[in-house]
């Protein structure tokens, strides 16, 4: 009887520990460094793969989704969402009219930021994956050069209540040109 009880307990423990391991990665928060790195990597990926690379960006389980973040792609000139791993309903649809809960035209602002060579960061409110409520989101946006296009805009963000846009811009500058920022 004791043996049977221990066995059930062991099954329950292993079940719950397994669940803990399989818990959504969204519990972990993406960092700004990761957002910048992922956007730049996606930019290089699209340079090599052309339009055929969009399928990879649309994949929910692909390399462009991690922790609680993801890379999404849009076309400012043609006012279209090109790829979005968590909102497939937005793909192919106009984006310029999209606002956050505060009425900010997110994509109009992102397109302005993406026109600068190093891109930029935008602050707005957005639903965090798995959280079911809106949070302060800071998104890095950058333009990728891609064949047969004037450029596709790529973005990825972090959910954070404290980070300032100034600090994020400094971080971007540092990552773009590390030689200018010696470690010591």
């Amino acid at each position, binding site marked *: 009887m004791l043996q049977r009880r221990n066995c059930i307990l062991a099954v329950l423990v292993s079940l719950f520990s397994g669940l803990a391991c399989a818990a959504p990665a969204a519990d972990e928060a993406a960092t700004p460094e990761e957002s910048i790195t992922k956007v730049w990597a996606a930019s290089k990926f699209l*340079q*090599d*793969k*052309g*339009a*055929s690379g969009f399928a990879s960006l649309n994949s929910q389980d692909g390399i462009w989704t991690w922790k609680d973040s993801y890379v999404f792609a849009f076309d400012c*000139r*043609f006012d279209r969402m090109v790829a979005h791993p968590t909102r497939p309903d937005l793909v192919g649809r106009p984006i310029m009219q999209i606002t956050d809960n505060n009425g900010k035209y997110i994509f109009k602002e992102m397109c302005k930021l993406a026109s600068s060579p190093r891109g930029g960061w935008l602050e707005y409110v957005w639903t965090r994956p798995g959280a079911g409520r809106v949070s302060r989101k800071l998104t890095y946006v950058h333009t990728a*050069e*891609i*064949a*047969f296009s*004037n*450029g596709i805009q790529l973005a990825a963000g972090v959910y954070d209540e404290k980070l300032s846009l100034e600090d994020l811009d400094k971080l971007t500058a540092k990552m773009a040109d590390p030689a200018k920022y010696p470690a010591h």
Partner: protein
Amino acid sequence: MAEQKLGNPAAVGLAGFGLTTLVLQFHNVGWMGIGPVIWLGLVFGGLAQLIAGLQEMKTGNNFGYCAFTGYGCFWISLALMLLGNHFNIYVSSKTDIGWFLVAWTAFTAILWIGSMRISGALGLTFTLLLIGFILLDLAHFGYPGLTVVAGYELMVTACMAWYIMAHIIFADVFGRDVLPVGKPWI
């Protein structure tokens, strides 16, 4: 026995060249998507212009033979490259497309010299086409903003090609030269 009247293949060649160039520029300046460019590039700018070019051989016109056949192949290659990029077959990067355009710029430069010996209108068309190619080359090697400038410039090129097309057609249907093409420049 009366000799059978032959059509001028250049009318079709210029029509395909002009229309497809115009539609690609509508895309380049941001007015429309890429879909119609691919299909027109394959059929009118590509196949029809290529056939027109091959028919020029029978007329003994080496300029038209080379130009229409060449640009017909340009459009077919461009459309296939677009499809290749979509379906992940021999994907071309922006730099690859840039070098593709540089080669066509060199090809155009040779024809540009020949065009100046044919008529003023053809000389102007090829001058504009050469400038358009150079702008597109620069757009692919560090100056992406020039794509839009090239777009408007190449729309004028397409209209010039249509002017010569209209000259050929109107001369036939009206029995006189309605739209003069001017004397050769050299």
